[in-house]
């Protein structure tokens, strides 16, 4: 989502207050429908592929024709499509995403191993970019037209225009290769198995460059949205009221303008999570970060379709769940949405 698109979306209407169960049902239902669509898309997009999954499974390995036949039956490939879909659903409910072609392991297992590093990376990056973006955004808006504003929006837009992988590579070359400040890849120093604080510090050390890359590319949108949002609020009458009451200018901003400007921003922040998570694919690949994005990239090279299908379903589900959480958070934050 582009910076200004999000800004335009600020004007979107919010649902009026409704009772909590109804709200939950509405939002939860929506999330469930989205999840269902992910599941269906995950199934059918990988079924339209040319090529026989049984052949793919056995590629490069020595197998007899009977073995292929047996595998095909086992995978239910000879069943009619609806039946296949049902068994796929059943498997999904049991948490079974199939077996990777390349790794010969349960996709669920592979994903489970990689989930935590990805959450750590994207979570840290999201937190920093949101805090940084919002903070710079409100400041820029407040000082609109100042050198600060120009510098900040200008920088943000430049970073926003940089391809993530390219920026990552250059950061890697400069700070890891050239200056040697940070490790060139991975999550922990291999060959060491630090514990406690040492481990935290080691991981943090490895985290710096990937997080920096992600933050640089995504914070712009938070900055622009927050800036737009605060500018919108800046002409609000209640700020005049606050000033008339004798409030200092910085209090007018922090007590009145920012809390109000934050509200529409919250939804947009959560909407951008999809983009952030998507960015993990390239950043993790550049920095060899052992996460889901890296796994996706590994799945791409063959391509390993069950693995890709699995990462797609998991990535999308994470984002959908986060959005659902966002709706709940929003409800808590905005008194106007509470049951009246």
């Amino acid at each position, binding site marked *: 989502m582009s910076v200004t698109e999000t800004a335009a979306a600020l004007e979107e209407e919010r649902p009026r207050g409704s009772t909590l169960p109804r709200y939950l049902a509405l939002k939860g239902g929506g999330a469930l429908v989205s999840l269902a669509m992910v599941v269906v898309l995950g199934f059918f997009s990988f079924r339209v592929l040319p090529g026989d999954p049984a052949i793919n499974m056995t590629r490069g390995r020595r197998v007899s024709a009977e073995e292929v036949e047996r595998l095909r039956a086992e995978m239910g490939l000879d069943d009619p499509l609806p039946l296949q879909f049902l068994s796929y659903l059943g498997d999904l409910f049991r948490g079974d995403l199939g077996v990777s072609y390349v790794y010969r392991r349960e996709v669920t297992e592979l994903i489970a191993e990689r989930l935590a590093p990805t959450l750590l990376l994207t979570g840290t990056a999201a937190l920093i970019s949101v805090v940084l973006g919002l903070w710079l955004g409100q400041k820029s808006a407040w000082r609109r037209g100042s050198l600060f504003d120009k510098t900040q929006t200008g920088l943000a837009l430049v970073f926003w225009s940089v391809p993530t992988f390219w920026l990552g590579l250059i950061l890697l070359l400069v700070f890891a290769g050239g200056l040697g400040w940070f490790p060139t890849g991975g999550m922990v120093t291999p060959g060491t198995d630090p514990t406690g604080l040492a481990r935290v510090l080691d991981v943090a050390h490895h985290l710096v460059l990937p997080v920096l890359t992600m933050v640089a590319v995504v914070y712009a949108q938070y900055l622009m949205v927050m800036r737009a949002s605060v500018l919108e609020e800046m002409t609000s009458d209640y700020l005049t009221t*606050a000033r008339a009451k004798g409030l200092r200018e910085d209090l007018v901003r922090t007590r009145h303008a920012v809390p109000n400007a934050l509200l529409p921003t919250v939804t947009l922040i959560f909407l951008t999570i999809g983009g952030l998570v998507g960015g993990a694919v390239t950043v993790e690949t550049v920095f060899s970060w052992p996460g889901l994005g890296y796994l996706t990239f590994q799945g791409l090279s063959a391509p390993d379709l069950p693995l890709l299908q699995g990462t797609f379903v998991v990535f999308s589900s994470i984002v959908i769940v986060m959005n659902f959480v966002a709706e709940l958070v929003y409800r808590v934050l905005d008194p106007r949405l509470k049951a009246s």
Partner: protein
Amino acid sequence: MSGAQQPAGAALEWRDVTIGYRRGDGGELVAVDGVSLSVPRGGTVGLAGESGCGKSTMAMSVLRLLPRSARITGSILVGGEDVATMSWGRLRAVRWTEAAIVFQGAMHSLNPVRTVRRQIREALELHSSPATRTPAQRDARVAELLALVDLPAARAEAYPHELSGGQKQRVMIAMALACDPEVIIADEPTTALDVVVQAQVLDVLSGLVRDRGLTLVMISHDLSVLAAVCERIVVMRHGRIVEEGPSEQILGSPRHEHTRELAAAFPVIGDPGSRRVVGRAAVTRLRARESGAPEEDGGPAAGVPAAPDGAAATHAEDTATPLLEVRDLVVDFRSRGQHVRAVDHVSLRCRAGEIVALVGQSGSGKTTLARTVLGLQRPTSGQVLHRGVPLPTARAALKAYRRAVQFVLQDPSASLNPKHTVYEAVAEGLRIHRLPGDERERVAAALTQAELTPPEQFFARIPQELSGGQRQRVVIAGALALEPSFLVADEPVASLDASVRGEILALLLRLQRELGLGALVITHDLGLAWNIADRVVVMHQGRLVEDGPVEQVLLDPQHDYTRTLLDVVPSRLGARL
């Protein structure tokens, strides 16, 4: 009024103040032009004028709340101290303790995400006095303030969106009183409010002024509202004061032409001189009254000659089937799982060439009724009949009906597509209905009928290049182009300045007279009904409570609700207080 004569004792004074705004192109827009005005302690002054006359700029200048682009010359004294020379710290201290403002549109002037208590308490914390040192004291003070404006203390926990418009405005007043300021400036405090609520808020305000000896500067475009609260009224135009005087004089016998225009917009119900006399004619009448000439001799000097009781008389009672008939109409809405009955078994007849005023408060269902009559809203039950034929439900079949009954909306700026030229706007209906004949001629004719002449000059204009009155004329021309037999007009003048309002009403009257065009005019303003209608229908909570000729209903109301409405007409408020 005791200290009114000594300038030194003035609570608030503008001395030769000129305020200009820098424009983007480097020029300057002068909003206030050399105004001097002094408000004595305990005085109540009304500041009247149309939009853009500089009255709000005057208000904001008191606490230096104008945007940075504003340039001020002259001096503004609050309690004898010039705000322009105050330090920021001093200014912040003066704000709200010396003078407080009740802002226009309480809807937006309260922070939507903070409770009423926090917002009021904020002022107390900033300007803490010995009486409001502790949180408990402050809470007590909040409760006390809310009590002053007749709100229960429990409402302190409410968020603004949980309050009605009137309650919010009262919270604003309570907040303004928080630090016991000398001066209260009320900027259009009742503009967005319903008539009944407006009366309540004005009650509270004038009660406080009376009981607490406050100095009040109130700003409004509505002379009668000002007259209801203020001793003196100052009329502004183009940044200058054009007339100043006691309220009765300003309202009753204005001297300046502009004041007359303002005054004419708010007729006194029951005054036969203002019955079906609008626009230039009404102004002329006021001028005549001021100069002592006989009132009847308003003459056809300018604008529309009045047609006193003419229309009503020519259209004899129930000659044929009514042009429009509403039978037992019910309209329900569903919102958030709840059913709301907007129109509740309403029956109504409109004859050809008759102007019927549908009067009611906001939320009484009058707009829904209009939309249903126009076929824009599907009725839950009941029927709308046009010349005795029920309205078809199919869209295609409705098309013919829509040609016959046309719609004039409240806000002309919004009811024209800002990107379409006047020509396109007027021709839109012609194109939809594929009417035969030369489109250009028809458009020109319609514009001429709507008194936009010469029409060619207006073809290429876009709405933003037109004045409010001209825009409404374009809307009317668009309707006329289809040669309708009836108009439904929803608050046709509510968003227009007073001086323009009369002209549009005059146009409606002329169309009735010359084209025999009847209209259902929806309004909250009984004065408007008195101005132009043949018949008045009063609507309350979805039901029609009274229906009859104007004189009968307004001068001898039968229903309690009609009486309540008449009571809160601003021109009568002053008498009541």
